[in-house]
């Protein structure tokens, strides 16, 4: 083992220990509610990585991605709650949710194959809304989804008889429910990251990049554009479905309102903000945008500290600041916080013809 790889190993081990201890540190430092936020952040990382396959790798702008999260969540909720009196185990439900969501990905992807750019965006957005509206209204004439009330009392995930919904003592250490979910989500997030990395650097990943760059040339190079696009939709959707199932078990309650358009947009913001196509960037974006709105809840305390009393209700101010943060981050890092290698080169390249041409388009103003 040479110096360099030993160094990499040390970083890995340190990172591993850090991630393992994180919930305890957060619990001690910020409180139990922040462990739950941590869990949610991991779910969003999975979602963002799923959408990254569709948007970042294959270049297909999908504004209805949350629908697959919803499909996964409802899949779990309906088969593990008093709703139909079914209580299937999680190791059936999670793959099933991913599979069903993947099928939905193909189903909704098929009609969009000829569409480009913003047309694709609006159609996927439409599909997202259609699914949400159906979830909202399928309580009559036959009650399937329980409508706007949502599904209650969903079984917590339980592994080998160990329910993650309750505090457990293992090896003499007490783990609260959010702690337990943290470890499950962490493992699955690592799996999703691994799969994402492997896919990006593969024959399929190159084909995705090719259709993102130039669909006509890709087809002329022998890529079956239809199948490769559907594969991206299916793969992205199944990540979403997996995360959805986990969400349902974690929350114990879901309703259509959790799956509105704004959620799709947030996930898109995560990947663009972090750095589309770049896995560390996407992870950073997801964590940041999950944590930021929560952190902004503390503005109330800040106001008290600085001004003596709360001038503006923090819940009113929170989203405003969040909006400003989105704008500012984009203005200062238009390629994202951690741009992918391609984008970095795209922006830093001096003196390349295509770029000069592009620039001269807007030199017209001088």
């Amino acid at each position, binding site marked *: 083992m040479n110096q360099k790889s030993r160094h990499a190993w040390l970083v890995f081990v340190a990172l591993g220990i850090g991630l393992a201890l994180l919930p305890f540190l957060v619990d001690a430092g910020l409180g139990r509610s922040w462990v739950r936020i941590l869990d949610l952040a991991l779910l969003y990382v999975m979602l963002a990585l799923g959408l990254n396959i569709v948007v970042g790798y294959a270049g297909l702008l999908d504004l209805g991605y949350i629908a697959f999260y919803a499909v996964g969540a409802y899949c779990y909720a309906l088969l593990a709650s008093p709703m139909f009196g079914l209580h299937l185990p999680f190791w059936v439900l999670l793959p099933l949710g991913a599979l069903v969501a993947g099928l939905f990905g193909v189903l909704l992807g098929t009609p969009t194959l000829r569409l480009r750019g913003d047309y694709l965006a609006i159609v996927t957005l439409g599909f997202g809304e259609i699914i949400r509206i159906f979830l909202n209204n399928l309580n009559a004439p036959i009650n399937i989804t329980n409508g706007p009330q949502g599904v209650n009392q969903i079984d917590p995930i339980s592994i080998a008889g160990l329910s993650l919904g309750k505090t457990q003592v293992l090896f003499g250490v007490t783990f609260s429910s959010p702690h337990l979910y943290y470890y499950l989500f962490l493992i699955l997030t690592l799996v999703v990251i691994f799969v994402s990395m*492997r896919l990006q650097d593969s*024959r399929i990943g*190159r084909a995705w*990049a090719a259709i993102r*760059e*130039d669909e006509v040339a890709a087809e002329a190079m*022998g890529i*079956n554009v239809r199948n490769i696009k559907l594969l991206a939709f299916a793969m992205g959707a199944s990540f979403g479905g997996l995360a959805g199932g986990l969400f349902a078990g974690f929350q114990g309650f879901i309703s259509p309102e959790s799956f509105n358009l704004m959620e799709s947009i947030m996930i898109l913001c995560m990947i663009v903000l972090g750095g589309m196509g770049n896995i560390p960037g996407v992870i950073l974006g997801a964590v940041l945008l999950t944590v930021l709105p929560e952190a902004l809840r503390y503005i109330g305390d800040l106001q008290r500290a600085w001004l003596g009393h709360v001038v503006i209700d923090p819940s009113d101010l929170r989203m405003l600041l969040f909006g400003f943060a989105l704008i500012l981050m984009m203005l200062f890092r238009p390629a994202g916080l951690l741009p992918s290698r391609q984008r970095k080169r795209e922006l830093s390249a001096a003196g390349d013809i295509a*770029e000069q041409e592009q620039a001269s388009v807007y030199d017209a103003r001088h």
Partner: protein
Amino acid sequence: MPGTESMAALLRVEKISKRFGGIAALNDVSLVIESGEIHGLIGPNGAGKTTLFNIITGLYTPTHGNLDFKCCSLLGMKPHQVLKLGIARTFQNIRLFANMTALENVMVGRHARSHAGMLGAVIRNAATRAEEAAIQRRSRELLELVGIDRHRHALAKHLSYGDQRRLEIARALATDPALLALDEPAAGMNPTERETLKDLIVSLRDRLGLSLLVIEHDVKFIMAMCDHISVLNFGEKIADGTPQQVRNSPAVIEAYLGAEVA
């Protein structure tokens, strides 16, 4: 030209017509490309050369006519199916994957000749690893063949114009074609680059046994290299034969002089 009918016909274009709206871009064009020949396609601007190219490679569907390649008809095939049968192409206005490296561009060309799927990509088993290594090796060879291996890690869009054209040829070669169709491969090149390109094209035929279909404006360039030339004008074929025959064809002289006068 009935004399050219032979056993070795690779691509047979039969009475192809193409209309866009009311306008006829091609009218009853027939030609035969034989195995191992360099076939030139020339004609004034708007003669229908690129339209014919797009029909052969599956991008357009002809209004009438038939195309036979090796065994089967190409009618109704999609571009990726045509490619799989062994016809690869380059584009007049260069369509590289601009934000991928030169090497990655060529590796994409291997897509149709490799098999790894999702599962292989994720578990990266021995077969997949071997395939990836073979793709890399072959792609490097082709970059070397066209002479731009030293730029393999540069983004395609950062290459010089001539190198971009060469990269497009390497990418097309990566698909293991029997027929390589080049749409104005020498456009924008200086005389030295043209000379190198000509040598490359001839060596592709001589060393790899490829057949080539080349569109070019530069008549001198094409006369010097082609075995057989077809001339299009206003969507119709006006001449067909060896460079010598074409050069002496009254119809061709008239078309070119006419074009020049206008």
